[in-house]
């Protein structure tokens, strides 16, 4: 159970940078009181953030990724159960991996 100084300093640097990312967005927003356009843009952020995360990640998986993703969305819409949707996606990737 060692804790070396160089490792600790690197970790503290990472932790500080990450906390700045977490807190600064909100702090800047509160300090600057942005115009209406910025406010509406932020209300629209959630969907685009995850679309922009998911699209390249699925493209890396190839066609089976998109099939599995469609199944995840369908199961989530039908059951409103996150665990069922995630399980269906992993199951689909497993089955498609056996077929492909």
């Amino acid at each position, binding site marked *: 159970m060692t804790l070396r100084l160089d490792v600790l300093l690197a970790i503290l640097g*990472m932790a500080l*940078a990450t906390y700045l990312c977490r807190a600064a967005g909100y702090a800047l927003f*509160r300090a600057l009181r942005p115009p209406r356009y910025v406010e509406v*843009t932020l209300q*629209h952020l959630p*969907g685009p*953030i995850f679309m*922009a995360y998911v699209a*390249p990640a699925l493209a890396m998986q190839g066609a089976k990724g998109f099939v599995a993703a469609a199944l995840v969305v369908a199961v989530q819409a039908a059951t409103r159960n996150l665990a069922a949707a995630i399980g269906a996606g992993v199951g689909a990737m497993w089955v498609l991996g056996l077929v492909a």
Partner: protein
Amino acid sequence: MSGTGIAFTRAGVLRGARAAAPLVIGTFPFGLVVGVISDAKGLSLLETWVMSGLVFAGSSQLLALELWTEPAPIAAATLAAFVVNIRMAPMGAALAPWFDRLRGIRLWGTLATLVDHSYAMSAAEMRRGGRDAGYLLGVGLALWCFWMLAVGIGHVFGSAVRLPPGHPVFFAAIATFCAILVPVWQGVRRDLLPWTLAAAVALAAWGAGLGAPWPLLAGALSGAALGAWLELRRA
């Protein structure tokens, strides 16, 4: 969205923690991987836990570990963390209707637990009319506990739990975000064009060879900007 009636209760925290349970399926394998690689890079269990507990952001931990050297790369690790995690800056701003009603440790402490999943769950909760900011902290704390557990197990078992890179279990992380998109969707008129643009821009940036946060940032900001432009033009 008005800020009136925003609360921060123990019940909200507990409800958030319970809501986070299914997300663990997606984050646990990721934590195992971080633990295994941390061990492979020569970090002790204590160092691995200190990093995971304070940084608590898997993709930035993985990236920093990829470029780990002896002695530890202080500047490179710090920069890697900043570049990968800058995506969280707009998340805190988007949750402002809740944060505006919090003060002191409740505000700055809750912000410290913010991760993609707790943001997404809370954005959906806020959209459903949720007014208890404790929900965000609950999701974050539950994920933190399981994160520490997964990273610890990964480190202890080292190579024993090493899954091949393409293992279907890793799809759980992507599946989580696909499923989370469902309750965020508010209809064709509002969301179809912005979401399509976000995906297209992210794919184009990724296809052009841009690294880690840029496809996500470019896609997210262009999609949200289009959504806002369409909404204000209709108003």
